[in-house]
């Protein structure tokens, strides 16, 4: 018999790290101790606790990680609040992968890539950045611009400090919105920083973050000469099925769960402004 897509499998949380005051990263394996399923960067999975609810999260770990899957989750609703209080060893349900993911084998191949993230927006980008790092020969230069409200809110991935900054042809720019006594790096909003770091406008840009950041960054990238077909972003809408059937997540004739969450900005411009 065919498997019912809405029925999940069981996952086990094997590690929990606190990245910011309201973001934690959860490591998940299947009951057999292996990675629950294969995915491509940018795809999502539904996690749930029976009785609490199901919610969709982007998969933060890279597909090149063969041992487990990771999710960076910000506390902002019932499911996430529940997740934030669990301990290692907790079982959850998991189903996926869902969505189109980033075109890592097509549009992105051989390109210089600029990743621009705000706040928790780094979560989906972490998957593709680590993927690109592991398949270095397939891609050009990588620029990462990442900002948050404060240094406390910068998602604290080990690899930012220990790996990305040391990687040849990787440039990493971090910024926070307002000065704090503990921060000696750049201060300023992401959209403005994007104009300052000297981007090459032949690169392909990927944006992920709060809508307001996306809006201003998009405008500034276009000012720098980026065309909308060089810019990709992801959308986040309410979802229940993730398989294009429950009718909730459409923008025009596209279902974000199935046809997205990754969209090229010129394609997005052809859709109704309802996201």
């Amino acid at each position, binding site marked *: 018999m065919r498997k*019912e897509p*809405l029925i999940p*499998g069981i996952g086990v949380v094997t590690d929990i790290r606190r990245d910011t005051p309201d973001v934690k990263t959860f490591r998940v394996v299947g009951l057999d101790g292996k990675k629950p399923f294969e995915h491509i960067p940018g795809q999502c999975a539904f996690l749930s606790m029976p009785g609490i*609810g199901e919610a969709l999260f982007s998969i933060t770990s890279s597909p090149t990680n063969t041992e487990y899957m990771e999710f960076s989750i910000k506390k902002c609703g019932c499911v996430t609040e529940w997740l934030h209080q669990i301990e290692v060893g907790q079982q*959850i349900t998991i189903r996926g992968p869902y969505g189109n993911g980033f075109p890592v084998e097509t549009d992105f191949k051989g390109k210089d890539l600029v990743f621009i993230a705000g706040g928790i927006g780094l979560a989906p980008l972490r998957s593709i950045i680590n993927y690109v790092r592991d398949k270095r020969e397939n891609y050009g230069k990588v620029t990462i611009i990442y900002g948050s409200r404060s240094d406390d809110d910068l998602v604290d991935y080990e690899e930012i400090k220990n790996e990305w900054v040391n990687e040849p042809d990787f440039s990493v720019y971090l910024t926070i919105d307002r000065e704090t006594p503990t921060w000696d790096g750049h201060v300023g909003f992401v959209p403005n920083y994007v104009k300052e770091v000297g981007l090459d406008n032949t690169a392909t840009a990927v944006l992920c973050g709060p809508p307001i950041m996306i809006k201003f960054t998009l405008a500034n990238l276009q000012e720098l000469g980026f065309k909308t077909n060089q810019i990709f972003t992801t959308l986040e809408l309410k979802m229940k099925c993730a398989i294009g*059937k*429950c009718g909730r997540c459409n923008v025009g*004739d596209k279902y974000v769960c199935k046809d997205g969450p990754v969209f090229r900005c010129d394609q997005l411009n052809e859709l*109704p402004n*309802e996201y």
Partner: protein
Amino acid sequence: MMKISLKNLPELYSFIAKKNDLYLPIFKAGQVDFAKWDKDAIVDLNKLKTTKSAKDVFFPQSQDLVRFEVDGKKISIDEPIMPTNKQVIFGVKACDNRSFELLDMAFVEDYPDTFYEMRRANTTIVTLACAKPDEACFCKAYGIDAADPKGDVSTWIVDGYLHWMPNTDKGIELTTEVKDFFELDMDNSAVENQQSEIRAIIDRLPYSNIDLSKFTPDKLLELFNSPKWKALSEACLGCGTCTFVCPTCQCYDVKDFKTKTGVQRFKCWDSCMFADFTKCAHGNTRPSQMQRYRQRFMHKLVYFPSNHDGVYSCVGCGRCVQKCPQMLNIVKVIKTLGEDK
């Protein structure tokens, strides 16, 4: 073709019901809806339209998905109970029958809904021609012929007889099982006369020739951005009646229910007309009733066709025309937006 006197139908029902769950238009609580037949049921084959559509038979209002047991940090999942019963649905009108094909496009293409798929596979559909279509019907606009209702078996009621004609392998199988209840019917003229009468009535109905030509996927943005949606939707209560009676509305919710011993996850009909349908922790993509109203009709007339080779997700059954407490409906939308040049 074969025929059976209407007087003998109860015997036929009881024979079919021995091996199948038999669904018929049944009068209950003041209205007629498809429901499981038993010997006390009041069958009403003359009712033109059941209040709710026939979609429950494949897409029930509530469907259990899976049951979980939670024990400390451990979760176990029970195997789902699949709908393996054989079903016969009898008396389906041409529009509702067509709606099953549209639901197939929604539920079976990509990530098939296994509950829906299994019910479809296990069900034999016996349709019935509409002797007297009413003024809210506009199935003809979608190329549906109420006089030739299709399905696995087509039937017509004329002069005290039900005329029976199988169309598919499933229909032939059922026909073989029930043939002893029927007499041979060599003269097709009774049915043919009724067919011409039905088609003549339909040609005179007010919405039969409603103009859908404006609703094409390439007009998506233009139609979406039309200033007319505001006035069109102003009276909408967001009650969702139109979506619950509609044979092609597919939206659902997935929910958990805590039982004494575990958690039951189920899915149930939902409505894009409801204010919280798209509301989540980050906000709401359709915060106004205008947007929700626009979504329902854009889905049926533009988005669905754009994803399914131009096929509209409406069968012209007229239920939303008759049931909306505010007299809003898809016909008004088609007329108002379809007029724009």
